């Protein structure tokens, strides 16, 4: 590793540490109920699931729409396994306290959430991964719906609590927790993408036939990408469960997958940093910055602003998204990454231009 590379790496770590420090300080200064923390928590969770979807759609070229299903698996695994034994009777009140009578620690619960999602992804991947483009999309979407139906089935109520809420499992209070978990997982994904496996994924995305001719085992690598992506979707599902404090199967609809897909598209298909940035922007816009559009009693001077009432925010938001999809197809980052090296190159280019002018 040469010197500049090492320096860039150190700068990146310092930057990440700074972000953590800032969040930690903000949590001490601002009131706990500030919208900022909602955005930070939910944004980091969505960043993880968006990056995991990007690993499939952007880096391996597998257009999958099953993300909500794997999040559901993760959320349920976490919730079912970590509800304290003494709370089970109250949570599973219609199912005699449920069939599981033990609880695992939080860290194990989160890990198992990923493992269960990955295991089901492996099984689902066996039949569907040889399908192409939109057929793969609709098949994975279908699996997500099947999973949702199974989790709402009252015969499995002892395990899943049927269509009732799961609650009282351990949750996090500080935004640092989802930041740390998501950051760690995204770092692993980045390492994976830069490894030989990652290069194989990109080769498959660019040209399947050529990749196969180069000796890449298509079925194996596709299954690997699908399983790994689902593993991280499962973990983000567990984090989402912790964020929401309750879990119910009916919320993991295909609309959720569409939202994640739109985040990926806005960030730029094939850009990890793009997905992270856009998930924070997406959550901030939909939960916080555009809230004023929902306020029906808005006046500018004496002028009553028309059209504003609950729901208008989402209309404006979806029009903006359509505009990005249609006019700005590469998204915020395209397939580039935000990096120290890139910034330095950009700066030195600017400087050189200035010197040339002088």
């Amino acid at each position, binding site marked *: 590793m040469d010197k500049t590379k090492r320096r860039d790496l150190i700068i990146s770590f310092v930057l990440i540490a700074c972000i953590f420090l800032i969040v930690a300080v903000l949590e001490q200064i601002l009131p706990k109920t500030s919208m900022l923390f909602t955005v930070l928590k939910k944004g980091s969770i969505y960043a993880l699931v968006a990056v995991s979807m990007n690993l499939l759609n952007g880096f391996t070229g597998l257009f999958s729409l099953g993300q909500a299903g794997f999040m559901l698996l993760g959320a349920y695994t976490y919730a079912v396994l970590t509800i304290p034994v003494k709370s089970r009777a109250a949570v599973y009140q219609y199912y005699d306290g449920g069939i599981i009578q033990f609880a695992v620690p939080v860290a194990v619960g989160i890990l198992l959430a990923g493992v269960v999602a990955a295991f089901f992804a492996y099984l689902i991947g066996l039949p569907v991964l040889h399908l192409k483009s*939109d057929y793969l999309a609709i098949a994975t979407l279908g699996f997500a719906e099947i999973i949702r139906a199974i989790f709402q*089935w009252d015969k499995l109520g002892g395990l899943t609590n049927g269509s009732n809420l799961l609650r009282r499992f351990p949750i996090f209070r500080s935004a640092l927790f989802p930041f740390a978990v998501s950051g760690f997982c995204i770092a692993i994904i980045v390492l994976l993408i830069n490894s030989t496996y990652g290069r194989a994924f990109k080769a498959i995305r660019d040209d399947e036939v050529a990749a196969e001719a180069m000796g890449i085992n298509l079925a194996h690598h596709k299954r690997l990408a699908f399983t790994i992506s689902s593993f991280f979707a499962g973990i983000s599902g567990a984090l989402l469960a912790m964020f929401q404090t309750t879990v119910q199967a009916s919320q993991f609809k295909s609309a959720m997958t569409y939202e994640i*897909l739109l985040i990926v598209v806005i960030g730029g298909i094939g850009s990890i940093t793009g997905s992270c940035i856009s998930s924070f922007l997406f959550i901030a816009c939909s939960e916080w910055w555009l809230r004023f559009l929902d306020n029906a009693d808005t006046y500018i001077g004496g002028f009553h602003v028309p059209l504003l009432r*609950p729901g208008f925010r*989402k209309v404006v938001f*979806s029009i903006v998204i359509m505009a990005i999809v*249609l006019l700005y197809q590469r998204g915020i980052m395209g397939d580039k990454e935000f990096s120290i090296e890139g910034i330095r190159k950009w700066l030195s280019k600017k400087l050189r231009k200035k010197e040339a002018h002088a």
Partner: protein
Amino acid sequence: MGFFQSNLPYLLAGISTGGQYALIAIGYTMVYGILRLINFAHGDVFMCAALMVIYSASYMPLYVSLPLAVIATGVIGFAIERVAYKPLRTAPRMSAMISAIGMSYLLQNLALYVTGGLTKYYPSVPFIADSIEIFGAMTKRVTVITPFVTIILIVALVSIIKYTKIGIAMRAVSRDFETAQLMGVRINSVISATFVIGSLLAAIGSILFFSNYTGVTPTVGGMPGLKAFVAAVFGGIGSIPGAVIGAFIIGICENIIKGLGWTTFSDAFTFVLLIIVLMFMPTGLFGEKATDKV
């Protein structure tokens, strides 16, 4: 006879939902046949048709508002194609699909804004929403009418596709996009016509569907839309008779599953069927045996 008596309502309901799915499925299968695009917004067009009837019915009599809503739905279909799909015609296929998902998101949010998140109730259309009795089973007249309406419309559509100029153009475009263009077929007007026809049929389907299930919410189009798409895949995408038969099979199976007390799985069943079809006969029942599709 007792078994027949007790299951008749489900069978009737199945035939009727099947007919309604068929009308939606045609929109999917025609668009896919020509553009190779899953028009995710089609289910939401179906929902918009219902909302327009609801809102216009409070200002004008139903015999005006129903045809008006059907025509307006055709216009919406046309507009969606022009705004969301036409600019992406040369882009990768996935871009158009993402645009379709975005459009679906937009239509749902618009509906949410207009309705204020409340469930709206479909006006009771006289004659077709009346209750009648068949073999001792109570049902709405729409249940009996739907299959006939569906079949009449499909015969009309098939003859349009077979004998008129625009129909020949449609077949040419779906066979080979570029060659058709070279032969002087106006691609854009053919595609617009496809979307308009698909939307008109979805609007008629929505009149029949919501006479039966009267609650309209912004997301109500999603599930019937996906099911109709599955029907189109099942029947062989691009094939109109295939889509119709697929839709009837799905509608009947779904209602029988409901009748057996497995309501939770009535939606999941459709997707199980889809995956089985995709695995074992990717071209569906009547699809062309082309290899580049799956």
